[in-house]
C-alpha cells in the first residue's frame, strides 16, 4: 500500500519547492504588515470620508474568499486594466492584501491597548501629532502584538496551497503533478501534509512560548 521507494523518489522534489511556499508566505506577510498599519489608521480617522469607505473596503475583502480575489488578479486585471502579473506576484499581492485586513485589526487592538494617560501625557508635553504616534503610541502598541502577528504568518503559510489554483508551483501543486503521473496520491498528499505539520507546528509552539514569556514579563513589570 505505502511505497517507500516512491517516497524516496518524490521527497526531494517536494522539498525543492518549500522555498517557493515560504517566500510567498513571507513576501505576502511583509506586504500585509505594510498595508495593515495605514488601514488601521484610516479606519480610526476622525474624518468619516476616510473612515467609512476604508471600513467598507476592508470588510468586503475580509468576507470574500481569497481564491476569488486571486482569480480577479490573474483573470480580470489583464483584461480590464491591461495589467498582467506573474502567478507568483499575483499570489503574493492576493495573500498580502487579503491578510492586511486581518493585520489591521491586530494593529487596532494594539493601539487601543495604549492607556489613555499616555495620550494625555503627550498632549501635556506639547508633542505634535507625528511625534505622539511615532514616539509614544506605536512603540507601545506594536511589540505586544508580535505573537498574534506570528500566528498570522503561520496562517498565511498554510494558505499558500490556495495559490496552486493560479498555477504557482508550491507544495500541493507539485504533489498533484507527481501524483497524477503515477496515481500514487496517498504518498504524495500525505507527504505534503507531514511537511506542513512539521513546519507549522513547531513554529506555533514557538509563538505560544513567546506569548507566555511576554505575559510573564508584563506581569513582573506591573508588580514593580
Amino acid at each position, binding site marked *: *500500500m505505502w511505497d517507500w521507494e516512491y517516497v524516496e523518489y518524490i521527497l526531494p522534489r517536494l522539498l525543492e519547492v518549500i522555498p517557493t511556499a515560504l517566500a510567498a508566505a513571507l513576501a505576502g506577510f511583509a506586504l500585509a504588515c505594510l498595508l495593515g498599519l495605514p488601514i488601521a489608521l484610516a479606519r480610526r480617522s476622525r474624518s468619516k470620508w476616510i473612515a467609512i469607505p476604508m471600513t467598507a473596503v476592508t470588510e*468586503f475583502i*475580509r*468576507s*470574500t*474568499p*481569497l*481564491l*476569488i*480575489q486571486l*482569480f*480577479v488578479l490573474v*483573470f*480580470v486585471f489583464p*483584461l*480590464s486594466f491591461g495589467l498582467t502579473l506573474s502567478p507568483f506576484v499575483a499570489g503574493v499581492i492576493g495573500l498580502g492584501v487579503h491578510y492586511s485586513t486581518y493585520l489591521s485589526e491586530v494593529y487596532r487592538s494594539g493601539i487601543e491597548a495604549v492607556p489613555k494617560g499616555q495620550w494625555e501625557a503627550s498632549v501635556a508635553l506639547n508633542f505634535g501629532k507625528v511625534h505622539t504616534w511615532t514616539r509614544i503610541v506605536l512603540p507601545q502598541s506594536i511589540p505586544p502584538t508580535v505573537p498574534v502577528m506570528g500566528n498570522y504568518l503561520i496562517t498565511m503559510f*498554510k*494558505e*499558500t*496551497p*490556495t495559490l*496552486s*489554483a493560479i498555477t504557482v508551483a508550491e*507544495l*500541493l501543486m507539485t*504533489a*498533484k503533478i507527481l*501524483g497524477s503521473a503515477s496515481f500514487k*496520491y*496517498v504518498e*504524495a*498528499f*500525505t507527504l*505534503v*501534509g507531514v511537511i*506542513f*505539520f512539521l513546519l*507549522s*507546528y513547531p513554529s*506555533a509552539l514557538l509563538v505560544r512560548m513567546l506569548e507566555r514569556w511576554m505575559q510573564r514579563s508584563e506581569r513582573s513589570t506591573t508588580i514593580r
Partner: protein
Amino acid sequence: MEWLSLDLLPPLLKGFKITLLLTLVSIIVALFCAFLSGLARISRFAWLRSLAAAYVEVFRGTSLLVQLFWIYFALPMLLNIQLSALTAAVLALGLNYGAYGSEVVRSSVLSVPRGQIEATIALNMTAYQRMRRVILPQAWSMMLPGFGNLQIELLKGTSLVYLITLADLTYQGMMLRSYDLSRTGAVFAWLLILYFIAAYVFTLIVRFAEKRAAAGRG
C-alpha cells in the same frame, strides 16, 4: 462593458445554493466536532485529552486545501472506498473548522467562574445537569463571537471545493467565464457580491443569536 448584467445570475444562483447547503451542513459537522473535542480536552481521562489534542493539532497544523485533497484523492485509495466530492468537502470543512472551534469551546467552558461549579455541587446537581443547566448556557454566549468568525472563514473556505470539481458558486462562475472570456469581469464581480451577501447574512444570524443568548444576563 455590461457589468452586473442579470442574465448571469440564474446559473450562478444554482451554484450559490450548493455553496449555502455545503456551508450549513459543514457548520453542523464542525459544531459537533468542536463540542466533542473541546469537552474531551478538559476531560478527566488523560487518553481522551491527548486524543483530542492530537486531532486539534493535526487539523490546525496542516492546511484546509491539503486536507481536502487528501480526503478526496488519497483516503478512498487507502480504504478502497468511493467518496463523493460533496462528502469529502463536508468532511474536510467540518473536521478542519471543528478543530479551530474546539479551542473556542474549551476556553469558553474554562472561563465559566469557578463559583458556578461550586454552587452546582452545593445544590447536589448531577454532572449532566451541571453541564446542561449551568455551564453550557453561560459558555454558549461566550462561544458565539468566536463561532461567528469561524463560520465566515468556513464560508470562504467552501470556495476551495471548486478545485475538487464540486459544482459550487465558484465552479459555476468559472464555467460561465469559459463560455465567454470577455465577461470575466462581470462574472467575478457577481461572485464577490454573492459571497459578501452570504457572509453578511451569516453575520446577522450570529448577532441575533448573541442577543438572544445575552438576554436576561447582566
